[in-house]
């Protein structure tokens, strides 16, 4: 017999699965709007259930054994879910993000017999399973279900660029799956079990073992590919930019950060006992994270395709999260967990705004949209607020996460990483604010002919009322701002410690209070520079453009869109991780 709170654990995974099987079975009989309603209901129930589970998990992780196969004599026979407070809240956040996305996508996919909802619900179930499981192979299964649903959703528009983006996404993420499976095979051969705790015990017993290091290398590479960390990040911009907007909301809001969430869990729980891995982690994660934050921010600034800009901004923020994990403290990991939620809320809202522009103005090009947003000014206010939040405005969950990550980094003396988190945030904020100023206020130079740049037919369905699309977007932003910081500050030390399987820490340190303001100021300055470059004196403009052209060209050159290049960089990334592991 399973006691009450544990009883709930399978439901958030099973409910979306059952609903999507029902939708598929009865697809041709269901009236038009029913899949929408069913999907929203399923997502809301997942969110509520996960929140209830998280509340109960505050007293300690809840464990559930599937099929009643409880561990016997130290041998783990079945698959278990183990939910700590943080994992529960992350899953609840994901359920809520899906519910709002379904509202946003109301009527978006009319004639497809609920196929869109089926894929999205599978995606949701996989994400919840991914954050709850305590079994290595089960983690892989949910990882793959996520991937497969995502691949199909990306290509939904069937335009040439979305197909190419989806192919790159599929190939790179399939390789990630194979790497992960290889890593699981290695660790299983050495530990003789697939359960997180069982492996952790075996790893702790084993001492320095190349097999453990090799397994970690492969699993970490796979999760970093999902998390779009340099040099694995290339697929993300191709895929997120072309996916339908509601799907991009989910991709950027939860899929990428969930990869890093998995990495945090695996490195804190499974490989906690390996000194080699633990020594390599800070170098690897903080180094790659800082670099990713800067590169993603810089690339975001260069884009004029709004969704591609947001995609690069996601890469930048993924880098900041990775740096937070790299601090290996409750503060860094806790900050990263809050950051996942805050970033998901803000970035989800931004992708919804991009979707609103696609639906109402039939364009996604920043230059072509100049001044066209005046008629939908509420979206402009939302976009400006989201841009400020991205750049670090000290308000809401995203800011709290940022400051905790920065606090953990500064505590350990990682000055460069600290600066990188602020600069990365400022760069992406600058890009979004520049676009908001240009689109909704008509700022910046008149583009003339350039505005006519015809893109592929990218209009998204325009039949939805503006308020219906704007409401979920505003709800996301309001949630980010309204989550009471005291509540998080109170619960987080305990939750982060439980997440990392460490004894509870004291209050978490926050970074310097001036740093967010500095990055907001830098973000505004960057946006202003982008908009009013032609009005500034030449003496200011020339050196800046001179310094930016060569590296910029190199970066654009590297983001070639060629799958062959991506595969080569993937090998380089794995080799880099292996090299760091070998050197410590």
């Amino acid at each position: 017999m399973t006691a009450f709170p544990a009883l709930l654990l399978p439901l958030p995974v099973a409910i979306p699965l059952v609903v999507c099987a029902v939708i598929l079975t009865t697809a041709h009989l269901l009236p038009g709007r029913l899949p929408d309603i069913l999907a929203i209901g399923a997502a809301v129930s997942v969110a509520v259930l996960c929140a209830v589970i998280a509340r109960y998990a505050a007293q300690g992780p809840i464990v559930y054994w599937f099929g009643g196969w409880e561990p016997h004599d130290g041998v783990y026979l079945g698959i278990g879910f183990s939910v700590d407070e943080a994992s529960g809240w992350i899953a609840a956040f994901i359920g809520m993000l899906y519910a709002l996305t379904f509202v946003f996508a109301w009527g978006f996919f009319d004639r497809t017999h609920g196929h869109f909802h089926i894929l999205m619900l599978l995606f949701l179930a996989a994400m919840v399973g991914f954050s709850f499981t305590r079994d290595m192979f089960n983690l892989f299964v949910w990882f793959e279900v996520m991937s497969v649903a995502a691949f199909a959703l990306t290509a939904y528009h069937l335009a040439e660029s979305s197909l190419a983006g989806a192919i790159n996404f599929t190939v790179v993420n399939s390789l990630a799956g194979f790497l992960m499976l290889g890593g699981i095979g290695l660790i299983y051969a050495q530990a003789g079990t697939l359960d997180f705790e069982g492996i952790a015990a075996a790893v702790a017993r084993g001492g320095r073992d190349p097999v453990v290091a090799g397994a970690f290398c492969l699993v970490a590479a796979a999760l970093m590919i999902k998390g779009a960390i340099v040099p694995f990040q290339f697929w993300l911009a191709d895929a997120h930019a072309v996916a339908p907007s509601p799907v991009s909301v989910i991709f950027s809001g939860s899929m990428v950060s969930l990869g890093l969430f998995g990495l945090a869990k695996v490195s804190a729980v499974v490989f906690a006992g390996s000194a080699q891995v633990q020594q390599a982690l800070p170098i690897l994660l903080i180094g790659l994270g800082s670099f990713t934050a800067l590169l993603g921010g810089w690339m975001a600034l260069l884009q004029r395709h709004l969704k591609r800009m947001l995609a690069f901004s996601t890469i930048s923020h993924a880098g900041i999260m990775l740096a937070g994990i790299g601090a290996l403290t409750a503060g860094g990991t806790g900050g990263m967990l809050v950051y996942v939620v805050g970033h998901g809320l803000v970035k989800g809202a931004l992708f919804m705004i991009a979707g609103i522009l696609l639906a109402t103005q039939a364009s996604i090009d920043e230059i072509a949209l100049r001044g066209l947003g005046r008629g939908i000014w509420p979206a402009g206010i939302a976009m400006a607020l989201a841009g400020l939040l991205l750049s670090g405005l000290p308000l809401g969950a995203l800011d709290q996460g940022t400051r905790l990550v920065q606090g953990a980094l500064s505590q350990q003396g990682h000055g460069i990483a600290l600066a990188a988190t602020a600069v990365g945030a400022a760069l992406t904020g600058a890009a979004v604010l520049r676009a908001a100023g240009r689109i909704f206020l008509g700022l910046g130079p008149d583009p003339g002919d350039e505005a006519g740049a015809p893109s592929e037919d990218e209009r998204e369905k325009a039949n939805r009322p503006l308020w219906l699309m704007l409401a979920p977007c505003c709800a996301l932003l309001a949630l980010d701002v309204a989550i009471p910081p005291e509540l998080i500050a109170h619960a987080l030390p305990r939750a982060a410690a439980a997440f990392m399987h460490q004894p509870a820490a004291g209050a978490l340190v926050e970074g310097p209070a001036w740093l967010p303001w500095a990055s907001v100021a830098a973000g505004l300055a960057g946006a202003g520079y982008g908009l009013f470059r032609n009005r500034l004196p030449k003496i200011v403009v020339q050196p800046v453009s001179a310094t930016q052209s060569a590296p910029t060209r190199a970066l654009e050159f590297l983001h070639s869109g060629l799958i062959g290049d991506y595969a080569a960089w993937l090998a380089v990334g794995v080799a880099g991780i292996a090299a760091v592991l070998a050197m410590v």
Partner: protein
Amino acid sequence: MSVLPYAVAAWLFGVGLYGIATSRNFIHLVGCLGVCQSATYVLLLGLGYRWGSIAPIFYDHPPGTPAVDPVMQALVLTDIVVGATLTALLLVLTVQAHKRGGSLDPEKLRPMRAGRKSGRSQDTSRGDEAARGAR
């Protein structure tokens, strides 16, 4: 001899990755991805094997006969399903890409790049020209 299957797995992954990196045809590329995946089959089955053991099915042999690791076999079964789904999806994408773009060459079908039919970004087109110059 005792590491041969593992070496084969590593080699398979390596050649598969080489094929993906240099492929000029999407169908060939899907095949290469399959080769990479075979590496995981070989690795898992190799790790689960034991000399002198039977398949983990106790029909003709009584329970208790030494058998190979059934967990690895079950994992490979799941892996095969993963492979089937990925191949199907990639082939669909390839079919559609061929219909839209008229080509199966990754170099000709590139996502979100300027210089094809849409001049999306000054910077992008500059970068792309640089890329073409370098080639």
